[in-house]
């Protein structure tokens, strides 16, 4: 008889070997998988270590309360010994309002702040899914309100200018029954343009002399800081999107003349640096206007930046239009929709959804490019305000702190925009990939 050995009871499950579980497994899989990987990990750890060792004392010795760079350095030397370096955030604490508002009068800070808060109310139709209908009217009126709050002056100029849209609507209403949509729209636009060209100034002046209501006027020279960057950025963003869509549709259109003009505009703007366009705004735009006519430099810059962004948006939207399957266009035609209905109901909602990442990165680029307006002597935060602050003898010789502060704010805004675009993309996603 042979004896047989076999277990009669189950062994408890054993935990995997130490190299195959927990932290060790993670380290082996993610940091030390191959010799090359291990080498790269060690190099990165060394790089991070030397960066931290270099930067930590500087941040650690930060000074928050001082009235000049000299005092800052004295405090650092007293605290950390001779030769120690440290950040002097006291500059930011003392001058933050200039970085935000430029040289806008201090007692009027509530005006840009209010305009900024109202901006989010005006943006509600874009930000939230089902806003109340009345908010659209507020969005429509917001440019006039913001202009009045920021620049001040007589209330009548923005009011009368907005009335131009009322004239447009009135003419359209009166004529639409008789001559049809196309003619009524063109005549409405014509009436509004005539209103702005001829009635606007005189009427505003007349009303001003009858009842002078208004806020203290603030000159464009006093604008600056992130307020200026946001004003230029938001204006250019909100006007470049519709303009860019129109340009993209024009470029896709089968009307040769319209197409040529759109292509020429887009390629010209995209072919030259933004700086040259800004110099155009500040130096040679006057040549193209009637003799003696000139207008505010911020407005000129805003128009050129809007054109610049519109050309880029047009290319992004064109990509979206081209990516749409041919069948969508044909289906819209088969349903008997006319051009604008087909675009509005079928084509653009899909094309714009595809283009969201491109559109948002254009906006991010645009917002970063607002720093270039310092070259036409506007006080944007990065160069304009920083140099103005540094010109003060108290703070002469300070370099890193203002750059880090401004860079952080730009990072927060731009990173926020890119995350929002990802969220939007996810929310609007309808395919099942």
């Amino acid at each position, binding site marked *: 008889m042979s004896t047989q050995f076999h277990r009669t009871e189950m062994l408890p499950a054993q935990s995997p070997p130490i190299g195959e579980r927990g932290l060790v497994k993670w380290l082996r899989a*993610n*940091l030390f998988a191959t010799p090359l990987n291990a080498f790269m990990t060690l190099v*990165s750890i060394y790089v991070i270590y030397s960066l931290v060792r270099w930067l930590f004392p500087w941040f650690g010795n930060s000074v928050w309360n001082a009235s000049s760079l000299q005092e800052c350095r004295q405090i650092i030397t007293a605290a950390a010994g001779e030769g120690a370096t440290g950040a002097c955030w006291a500059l930011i604490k003392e001058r933050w309002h200039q970085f935000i508002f430029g040289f806008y009068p201090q007692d009027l800070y509530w005006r840009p702040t209010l305009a900024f808060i109202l901006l989010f109310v005006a943006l509600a139709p874009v930000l939230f899914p089902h806003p109340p209908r009345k908010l659209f009217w507020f969005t429509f009126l917001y440019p006039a309100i913001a202009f009045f709050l920021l620049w001040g002056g007589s209330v009548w100029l923005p009011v009368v200018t907005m009335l131009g849209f009322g004239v447009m609507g009135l003419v359209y209403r009166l004529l639409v029954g008789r001559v049809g949509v196309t003619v009524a729209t063109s005549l409405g636009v014509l009436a509004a343009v005539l209103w702005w060209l001829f009635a606007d100034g005189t009427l505003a002046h007349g009303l001003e002399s009858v009842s002078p209501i208004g806020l203290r006027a603030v000159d464009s020279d006093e604008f600056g800081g992130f307020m200026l960057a946001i004003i230029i950025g938001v204006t250019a963003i909100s006007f470049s999107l519709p303009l860019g869509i129109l340009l993209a549709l024009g470029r896709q259109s089968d009307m040769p003349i319209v197409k040529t003009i759109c292509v020429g505009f887009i390629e010209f703007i995209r072919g030259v640096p933004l700086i040259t366009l800004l110099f155009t705004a500040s130096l040679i735009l006057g040549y193209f206007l009637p003799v003696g006519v000139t207008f505010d430099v911020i407005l000129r810059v805003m128009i050129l930046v809007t054109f610049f962004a519109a050309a880029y948006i047009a290319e992004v939207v064109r990509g979206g239009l081209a990516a749409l399957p041919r069948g969508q266009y044909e289906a819209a035609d088969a349903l008997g929709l006319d051009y604008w209905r087909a675009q509005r109901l079928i084509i653009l909602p899909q094309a714009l959804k595809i283009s969201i990442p491109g559109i948002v990165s254009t906006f991010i680029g645009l917002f970063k490019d607002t720093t270039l307006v310092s070259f036409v002597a506007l006080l944007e935060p990065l160069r304009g305000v920083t140099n103005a602050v540094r010109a003060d003898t108290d703070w002469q010789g300070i370099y890193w702190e203002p750059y880090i502060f401004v860079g952080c704010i730009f990072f927060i805004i731009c990173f926020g925009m890119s995350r929002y675009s990802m969220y939007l993309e996810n929310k609007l996603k309808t395919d099942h990939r």
Partner: protein
Amino acid sequence: MALAADAPKDSFRLSMLVYDTRFRSITIQVAVLILFVLALSWLYGNVTANLAAKGRPFSFDFLWVRAGYDIAQRPISYTNDSTHFRAAMVGLSNTVILAALGCFFATLLGVTAGVLRLSKNWLIARLMTVYVEIFRNIPLLLWILVIFVPLGELTPAPNAFKVTDQMIADGVEPAASMILAGTVAVTNRGTYMPWAQLEHPLPSGWLTFGAIAAVLVLSFLANARIVMRARAVQEDTGVRPTTWWKSLLVLFTPVIVLLWAMGFHFDLVQPPTRFNFQGGILVLNSFLAILIALSLYTGAFIAEIVRAGILAISHGQSEAAFALGLRPNKTMKLIILPQALRVIIPPLISQFLNLTKNTSLGIAVSYLDLRGTLGGITLNQTGRELECMLLMMMIYLSMSLIISSVMNLYNRSVQLKER
């Protein structure tokens, strides 16, 4: 028989111009054309009126007047006695040099960072993400300034390197010393480094350049022939002959021989005995700052493009390649990369264009490129804003068009050939 042609003919009514789709597009185009021409003539009229009011004709004669200012970085010969046109050409070549080097380094950096961001190494991938996000979300202007400031502030002046006979006799060391075995000096003006020089070049610079270029092109053609023959042998027999040493020989020997014959040597940098360094070449801090900033900034964008391009290739492609028995690096080279390139190249072109246009930010560090010369000093000296700006825009525009057409040619060669 009733034919379609017999259908009742509408008499033409004026309203059909607007409501009949057959005529509407013509009406719209005519209206647009009329408005466009009106706008152009309005602008033209304004320009002539403005020029007349200022009492100056529209002319480019100022280009042939003595410029009278100095440019620190001169790729082509220039003195302050040269014309404004010559100054603009110096500026243009500075722009082109900056753009070409920038595109090269940005691509190198971008491809590396993009591939590393997909690495399985957790730390490296995170580091690259941080790099990309930081550089993409902060304005380029800030990077230029942040790099430029320490280059000027933290480095010694050229005369700190001064070595005089007196100092040698006294055994005194200079205040600052050169790095990399005493060949490169980093100063607050710029970096002095050795530069290639020819002892006895051909009679003219163009001839020398042409000779070197011709030899290089011939070598490349010969190498292409070797590779083609190797491929033919491989197709016939299945065995690829070893060619790497032949390629190396053909590629490098002729040009080395040519350079040796012309007396190629490095012009070393001599520390100053009075004020300035002798020999070598000076790379300006402004140039260095904007080059580094442009490469890092555009590199971050290119990294995202490369990453997206590689991710766009479906996983099945690499699995299929592995199933065929290809190794990972062959899979990358033969399967993934050729397909990814199709996705990568179009956005890469626009990044190159952006970089070229962003070189105009040299204004922030007073780098005298096209904008700094023609659109800067020349404009201010002559007061010819309109002419300078138009000329500068035209040059930038043609540069962009040339780059995009060259890159589009390349793009067409890698795109999928469909019937």
